[in-house]
């Protein structure tokens, strides 16, 4: 199974998740689709699923959990209870200042050194250990988690699956069945496939960046740290073997520019908590 980045869609190309499962590594074409905000392999044409049953808000928990099952099986969990508790504490802190502070938040760290993060509907937030290793203070972690929580608040995952459901390709992928339970199961299967293979659109990413910075600032963190992280990852990408991939998805530049402009309109300062981060996330 391929893996789709959600947090930093452009960053997937920086350090793509190589050797991914039975379908092989994340490929440049897919990354190009992702970053360009275009539809992925499953969504190729208009049309509608020829059945009234469809994924809706009430299914977000099942969808988010199923996607989390898929990803935690794919990568395994990074075994560091202290770090997991720390990520959870920071995640709940930014969630408390978000527009959706009462969701069913569950946080996890995936056991891979690739740089990535994921948010599933209704609050299932997973980040890779590789991304944590790129961070220098707690505010950077807060920024990433706030970005993911913004996707949750915006119901971006649900909307993405619903958009895919309206496609002919998705409908064709459903096996003929008159059994509602079987059909619903197929919808969940297809939904997880969408969530783990396709990126959010660039407008969704811009929105999540803006909302994430607002939320982390409201929680008392310094928004500048999120910009610092994006810039560091951009620099790392430029010096890595993945520079070619970066040329196919220059979206990070635009995101950095927008976050930079947003920060100029916000009150400067806030907590960075580098010492607490170092204490809990020692490399």
């Amino acid at each position, binding site marked *: 199974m391929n893996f789709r980045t959600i947090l930093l869609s452009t960053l997937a190309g920086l350090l793509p998740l190589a050797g991914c499962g039975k379908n092989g590594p994340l490929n440049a074409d897919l990354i190009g689709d992702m970053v360009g905000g275009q539809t992925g392999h499953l969504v190729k044409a208009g049309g509608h699923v020829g059945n009234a049953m469809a994924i809706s808000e009430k299914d977000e928990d099942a969808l988010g959990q199923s996607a989390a099952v898929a990803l935690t099986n794919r990568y395994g969990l990074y075994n560091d209870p202290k770090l997991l508790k720390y990520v959870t504490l920071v995640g709940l802190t930014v969630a408390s200042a978000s527009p959706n502070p009462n969701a069913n938040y569950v946080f996890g760290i995936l056991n891979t050194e690739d740089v990535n993060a994921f948010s599933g509907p209704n609050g299932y937030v997973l980040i890779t250990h590789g991304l944590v290793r790129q961070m220098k203070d707690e505010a950077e972690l807060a920024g990433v988690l706030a970005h993911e929580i913004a996707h949750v608040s915006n119901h971006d995952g649900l909307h993405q699956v619903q958009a895919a459901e309206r496609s002919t390709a998705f409908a064709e992928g459903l096996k003929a069945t008159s059994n509602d339970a079987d059909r619903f199961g197929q919808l969940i299967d297809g939904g997880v496939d969408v969530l783990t293979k396709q990126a959010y659109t660039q407008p969704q990413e811009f929105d999540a960046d803006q909302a994430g910075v607002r939320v982390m600032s409201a929680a008392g963190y310094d928004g500048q740290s999120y910009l610092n992280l994006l810039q560091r990852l951009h620099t790392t990408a430029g010096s890595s073997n993945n520079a070619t991939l970066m040329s196919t998805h220059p979206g990070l530049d635009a995101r950095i520019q927008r976050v930079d402009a947003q920060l100029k309109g916000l009150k400067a300062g806030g907590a960075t*908590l580098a010492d607490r981060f170092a204490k809990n996330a020692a490399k």
Partner: protein
Amino acid sequence: MKLHRHQLVLLAGGLLGSALATHTSTAEQIWVKSESAEIRSGKGAVFPLVATAAKGAELTVISREPKGWIKVKSGEVEGYVYENSIAAQKVDASGNLFSAMGAGVDASKTTSGAAAKGLQPDADVYARGQHLSTAPLNKLIAARNKLDPKEWQAFTAEGKVGPDAP
């Protein structure tokens, strides 16, 4: 001024009626507008779930709290909901059998002390269908539910971050 007996009765009746009217008007009712709403023991996702209210469920407001939290009651259930899942007007929940039956607030599916929902049956079906293990996700849910809200409160206070950040 001396009052006759019938005047006293009328006065008492009037006071009683006034008291009842006052009582009725202060019992604010609200309805769940999202597909479901978590009712928690405290104001935040870190606090344990006490019940889940279905779309259309009617809740009685006990108090309006700062930052969008509302303390509510429904039958024996009492806790906090967040304003983004609540409407001031009755919500049409036709098609929602649970609410249509007049219940709507279910405490039976919450695990005592748990802040995160356990594995949903549909996710379990997905895992079995794909031959995947639910153990890693269950481990994360368990770790999440082990977190003491007081520890989180101390964490936010120490860092001067969180909902009460300056």
